């Protein structure tokens, strides 16, 4: 990417960032919802682990660290504005971008980055407060290799989810009803469980985990956090990272092709 072109997307992110601050109340409300959900899950697992400290082959500190960790990884991976793309596609506002010298994907990716930053900042603040308040035992990973792998996996998960989510948005080219919310919610429900948002996936029976762990959804939250907790050995980590890279390539290719196909359809109906 040329420098001038980088500046372009930087400005997009900047504008999006200030847009996020206009409705502070909105954003705060969104964070409140996240915290409430986190607290409920935290206390559920706290109750489970306090009577059965070694159940599921997890120590209490590992389990609670996992649950609190999902909050930050959620902000990084799932924090997004690009969900609005589905509305723009079904309403025809997509045209606004098509006539400009700007890439629609990069445009939304830049806006997502701004949104993710904002969310991560808040998430870290919330977690800090919760840590001081609840004082749970926390699992601290100190192995630099694990930490670097964890960071890398989180970033890969972020990119992977971006293309995945964009693919869902693009279904509105073909199914524009209700701005694409039915299919989106369906995905939300599935992801809530299959990405490891409520519990680490490896507590599932081995046969089930063998399947769920291989699905792309498992990489969004479960894999980065497993790496952080040191529950994957080096070869498993390398395999996971490769699989994520592979999925990124596949999803990206699919997203690009779908977009091109979608645009033809778009034209054909004259929206």
């Amino acid at each position, binding site marked *: 990417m040329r420098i001038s072109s980088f500046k372009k997307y930087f400005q997009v992110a900047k504008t999006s960032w200030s847009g996020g601050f206009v*409705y502070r109340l909105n954003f705060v409300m969104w964070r409140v919802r996240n915290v409430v959900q986190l607290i409920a899950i935290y206390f559920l697992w706290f109750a489970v682990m306090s009577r059965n400290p070694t159940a599921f082959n997890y120590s209490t500190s590992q389990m609670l660290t996992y649950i609190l960790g999902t909050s930050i990884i959620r902000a990084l991976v799932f924090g997004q504005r690009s969900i609005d793309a589905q509305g723009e596609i079904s309403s025809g506002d997509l045209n606004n971008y*098509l*006539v*400009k*010298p700007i890439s629609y994907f990069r445009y939304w990716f830049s806006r997502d980055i701004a949104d993710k930053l904002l969310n991560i900042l808040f998430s870290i603040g919330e977690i800090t407060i919760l840590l001081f308040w609840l004082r749970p035992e926390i699992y601290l990973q100190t192995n630099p290799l694990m930490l670097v792998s964890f960071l890398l996996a989180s970033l890969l998960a972020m990119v992977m989810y971006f293309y995945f989510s964009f693919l869902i948005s693009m279904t509105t080219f073909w199914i524009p*009803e209700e701005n694409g919310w*039915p299919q989106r919610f369906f995905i939300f429900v599935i992801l809530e469980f299959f990405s490891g948002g409520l519990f680490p996936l490896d507590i599932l029976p081995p046969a089930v985990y063998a399947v769920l762990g291989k699905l792309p959804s498992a990489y969004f939250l479960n894999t980065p956090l497993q790496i952080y907790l040191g529950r994957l050995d080096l070869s498993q980590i390398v395999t996971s990272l490769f699989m994520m890279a592979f999925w990124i390539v596949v999803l990206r290719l699919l997203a690009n092709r779908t977009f091109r196909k979608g645009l*033809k359809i778009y034209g054909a*109906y004259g929206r």
Partner: protein
Amino acid sequence: MKDMSVISVRHLKKYYRVHEKEPGLKGSIRSLFTRKYTQVKAVDNIDFTIEEGELVGFIGPNGAGKTTTLKVLSGLLYPTSGEVSVLGFNPWDRKAQFQKQFALVMGQKNQLWWDLPPMETFILNKEIYEVPEDQFKKTLDKLIELLDVKDILKIQVRKLSLGQRMKCELIAALLHNPKVLFLDEPTIGLDVVMQKVMRDFVKQYNRQFKSTIILTSHYMGDVKELCERVIIIDKGKILFDGKLQNVIDRFARNKIITVVFSRDIDQRKLAEFGNIREYQFPRAKINVPRKDVAKLSAKLLSDFPVADLVIEEAPIEAIIREVFTGKMKQTNA
């Protein structure tokens, strides 16, 4: 050899394959598998060229193909067949060099960021179009002055009135000094005063920047005041392309004679002269065929007690309305 015109359209066809779809999700899902298509000829074999600096009005009823044509010219729609060239580019390629030289403004859609002041969108567009800082400043100052919007630049877009918003939409679209400008219903929904402001601006902009402009509008007022040349489209075909004045020669087969009588007269006798548009003693308006105007007015003067008599062209709105409704052919009077 490359065409020298800024815009050239040759044998352009844009057929939509609209599949018949039941409403709701069910229809969408079913249509993923089986589709019944009907063909809509939105644009059906049209040709025209537009030279640099021209300001051309597209007129036609809803669904005539105006917006479709603009969308093809903007690279939003892929033509079914035909050749389109704008500034030497094929619009569908959506090359950045091309996109930096034109702008599309749709009166019903907005590109301004709803939650932020318009200035933010301007700055964003500056980066998107890679406009140099000094040029950006100069253009912006000029546009702000022309449209008189200095006071609203820092106010959230959602708090602006429709007119103020439209002014800012125009600025956002013009910051990169486009050579070609497509205006799709720019005055829709605006009040009369604001319509005039917009018209004056477009006129002035066209003159000062020598930009080529295509404008579509429902309001004849826009077209009458701005465009020397009009292209009339209906059902995807061009009915007329030329000077607005010539529309009258071509389509208006009637003139209107207004007579003021000094005494009441027999209406039935008057009806033999032509179609009486209105009669309210002492004044009558009669539609008469153009070629018979001289003969009939002489006869009017001799047959009736006439105090005054004026011969006029039918108003352009009425002529065009009649072109579209097809009344011309039937009455032919």
